[in-house]
């Protein structure tokens, strides 16, 4: 289960970061945003799904201890926010692609999304160090 969780997390965080850097204009400039988004979307959501499922099973083993640990609560909060940023990007991507230049909001959301996803990993690696769980 750990293997599934790690692999799925790396995969979905990575694909979303790629989309974010495309929005920021520092990758894939010769492809349209929509085509990059279309290409990455199914992979990203399958990654999120498997990460959530395997994460839940890992959580279930020591659910009480995890739920009581502050770092774990912070992790869940950051993860939900990160997923929300991904949803926001998914929802707006077509509109952003039609604009002649990338809107500032788009760049801002992409940047926030990168910070949130990297933040999720940061809180996760701190959980065993701070609580002894994991």
């Amino acid at each position, binding site marked *: 289960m750990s293997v599934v969780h790690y692999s799925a997390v*790396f995969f*979905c965080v*990575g694909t979303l970061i*790629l989309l974010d850097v495309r929005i920021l204009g520092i*990758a*894939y400039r010769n492809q349209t945003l929509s085509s990059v988004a279309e290409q990455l979307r199914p992979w990203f959501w399958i990654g999120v799904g498997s990460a959530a499922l395997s994460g839940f099973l890992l959580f279930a083993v020591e659910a009480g201890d995890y739920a009581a640990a502050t770092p774990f609560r912070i992790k869940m909060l950051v993860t939900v926010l990160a997923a929300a940023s991904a949803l926001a990007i998914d929802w707006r991507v077509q509109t952003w692609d039609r604009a002649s230049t990338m809107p500032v909001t788009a760049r801002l959301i992409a940047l926030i999304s990168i910070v949130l996803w990297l933040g999720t*990993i940061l809180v996760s690696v701190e959980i*065993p160090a701070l609580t002894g769980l994991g």
Partner: protein
Amino acid sequence: MYDVVLAGCRWLENTPWGVAVRGSSWMYPLALWVHFVGLSVWLATSLAVDLRLMGVGSRQLNAVELSTGLFAWNWIGFVIAFVGGFLLLSAEATTYAANTGFRLKLIVLIPAALIWHVMVQKKTQAWTETARTSAIGRWAGLIEFVLWISVVSASVGFLLTNAVTRP
């Protein structure tokens, strides 16, 4: 031979960065974070091309478009993962060197996966010239996918048996 490796490990553990990561409660997780961030970028960019070669997922971009667009990010991810991994190794090199999961990962799996990866990167163009990815390309993609997942598996096996990350 093993003596030389052990001597190298002891030297690594006594480097300023090795001492710093080992002696601090927050630097080890931080190095792990750097390693994971690099891995996210590295694995996603590599596996994306593999999956596209296999024909799994959307077909907006072909494998060459994905591969060339991802090339720089692919190796940026690798360098970040390498730096993080090097810091982690320096903290407790002798413990790592004795762990079977770690030996398998570093001596067998990573070299194999890396060589295969570079080959796939070079060949993707040729495999994609026909409208459908050639059969050899599909298999090559599948093999690279499996190789990297086995690298992650060995690493997780090692993580779960390592004293520092399992206090």
